[in-house]
């Protein structure tokens, strides 16, 4: 609607990893999210070391997906994985640390934030820090402009998975249980959602034919990303 840009009340979730670009169209049907479209495009060297080496190709793929399903002007959510985002799990003895106390040398170059995860052994507290370098962030913003995306979220994949975990747990969510379910292996959070749990989280439109066993690692972050829509509303 002139002079405002048109908006289409649909939600497109995109996962960008080093080896694939996954686009999905998820809507809410009664109570469960429904996957209405899914497209995974393998990437070779388009995304290397966290930098977009061929943003035109990525923009082309996303634009085609939106055009095919008439999703132009929809709300777009993008989740990115390492090494695009600089992620760390920081343990500290302070329950409410300041940004300065959590800031590493890597994060100083980044736009970053942190979230409290759970209490750890010996009175330690685990925090998640995630950041993205400014040039990379600019690349994604330019990508959104080039592909004419109504981009409203750019977030780390792992945090999206944590969001999905919290959603699955529902009212019984406890941070102490989270520490048991999502162990910290020293470098990253090792969290895999069981297939039957994933099946309970989403339904599939009749037109979508995917092998859940193969796509679960991609689908889970997309569901979590879709659920951030409700997080936005809760804010």
């Amino acid at each position, binding site marked *: 609607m002139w002079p405002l840009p048109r908006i289409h009340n649909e939600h497109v979730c995109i996962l960008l990893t080093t080896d694939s670009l996954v686009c999905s169209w998820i809507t809410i049907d009664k109570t469960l999210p429904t996957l209405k479209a899914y497209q995974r495009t393998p990437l070779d060297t388009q995304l290397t070391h966290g930098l977009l080496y061929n943003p035109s190709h990525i923009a082309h793929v996303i634009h085609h997906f939106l055009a095919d399903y008439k999703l132009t002007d929809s709300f777009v959510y993008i989740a990115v994985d390492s090494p695009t985002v600089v992620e760390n799990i920081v343990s500290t003895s302070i329950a409410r640390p300041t940004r300065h106390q959590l800031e590493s040398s890597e994060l100083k170059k980044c736009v970053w934030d942190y979230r409290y995860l759970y209490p750890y052994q010996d009175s330690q507290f685990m925090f998640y820090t995630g950041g993205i370098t400014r040039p990379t*962030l600019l690349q994604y913003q330019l990508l959104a402009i080039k592909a004419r995306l109504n981009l409203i979220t750019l977030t780390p994949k792992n945090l999206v998975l944590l969001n999905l975990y919290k959603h699955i747990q529902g009212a019984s969510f406890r941070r102490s249980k989270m520490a048991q379910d999502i162990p910290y292996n020293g470098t990253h959070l090792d969290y895999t959602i069981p297939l039957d749990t994933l099946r309970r989280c989403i339904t599939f439109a009749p037109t979508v034919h995917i092998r859940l066993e193969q796509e679960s690692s991609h689908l889970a972050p997309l569901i979590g990303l879709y659920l951030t829509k409700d997080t936005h509303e809760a804010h």
Partner: protein
Amino acid sequence: MKLINFIHTLNHKEQHNIILWYRISCVLVSAMVLGLVIISWRQHRQLNTAYQEWHVWKTKTDALIAGTKEYELLKKQEQELRARKTLVHSITSQQKQIADYFTTLAHINKDNALHTITIYNNNIELCAECKNNQAATALLKTMEQSKQFSHVRINALNQNDGGKLLVTIKGTTKA
């Protein structure tokens, strides 16, 4: 768990709200403009009606004003004429009165020779030639008895070269 969002944009709820606000604003502005147009149109129509009425009344009152002016002019002319008429009447009546005085004096002095008669305002001075004193006294009495003169008196009594008396009588006229 609150999400980390690297970009700061309006979320879909806020975007919807902006669109809604924009639509409501458009509707309200359109309604206001429409309302203003309707009110202006009605006022314009009333103005037109009032102007037409004013024009009709002006036509009527123009004739009335012209009539009033003519009436005033005629009234003024009538006053002037009346004043002239009064003046003429007074002059005519005055001359007629003087003529009456002359007629009366001529009638009284049919046995005497009149020399001068001077009438100034209400004063009258008569100079006549009488045969003797009795004639002069008779003239005085006749003038006293006349209704046209009063305060009559003999001012001078002289004898001329022919032995006749030149009597001067002064008096006032009765208006």
